[in-house]
């Protein structure tokens, strides 16, 4: 599929900007997303479905979000598509997480 992910040769992306002494993860949530993706059993989805879900991201969102944000988007979308949970359950989990965060603030 030709899409925004097909970046080879694209112009206007700017310098590479490598980071000195880069950590494996830059935030705790990156650790968690990585581990969630790895821990979900292979019977639920395969790697090609995972990749294709990222490739289906809206182009502007793809370019303006980070690697592990792509993974997060992918897991939310794919788990719903695979019938592992409903969108309404995810929304309820968002609101629970927000309440818990406010409660502890």
């Amino acid at each position, binding site marked *: 599929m030709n899409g925004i992910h097909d970046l*080879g040769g694209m112009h206007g992306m700017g310098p590479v900007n490598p980071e000195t002494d880069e950590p494996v993860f830059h935030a705790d*949530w990156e650790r968690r997303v990585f581990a969630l993706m790895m*821990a979900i059993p292979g019977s639920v989805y395969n790697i090609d479905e995972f990749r294709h879900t990222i490739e289906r991201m809206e182009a502007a969102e793809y370019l303006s979000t980070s*690697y592990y944000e792509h993974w997060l988007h992918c897991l*939310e979308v794919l788990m719903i598509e695979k019938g592992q949970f409903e969108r309404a359950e*995810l929304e309820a989990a968002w609101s629970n997480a927000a309440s818990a965060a406010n409660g502890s603030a």
Partner: protein
Amino acid sequence: MADHDHTEPPSDTALRVKALESLLLEKGLVEADTLDAIIQLYEHNVGPQNGAKVVARAWSDPDYKARLLADATPAIAELGYGGVQGEDMVVVENTSDVHNLLVCTLCSCYPWPVLGLPPVWYKAAPYRARAVSEPRAVLKEFGVEIREGVEVRVWDSTAELRYMVLPERPAGTEGLGEDELAALVTRDSMIGVALVEST
């Protein structure tokens, strides 16, 4: 595509991840202990120190180097490395005539068992866009000048196949053992954006 009957996700990414994790735990799709073990493994045990040992062995043992270049996956497994994102490995050798550079233009395919998880720049748009169209300019940004007359080969990873660069052994390292050699080998040299220096 957006369905406006739906609540938008929270703008706080950490919150969104917490919500997803709690839902997956509740559904029994993941277990907390497994998550912690995965993080421990990839943050502390798997990394470019593994690939460095493969390189040091290849520099020290010509028979091993021949096996590595002929069929990398079993040769790497001889040192105990393999598995996820390293199921089908190809090792490409830098020489005085050829410099190799790795990229994944479509996503971020990278040989985890030997190099660990990829750095941000490898996964980001500028490197993926430019490594294939102007590799010498990209190398220059990493401080690597490739002489005229040296061929630059860029290897674009596929969904299943992963590359690793076997860097050139630096001059002045003839007396060093494998451990000392491995200590000289950097992650970037095995991606092809650095050369190995003798000190």
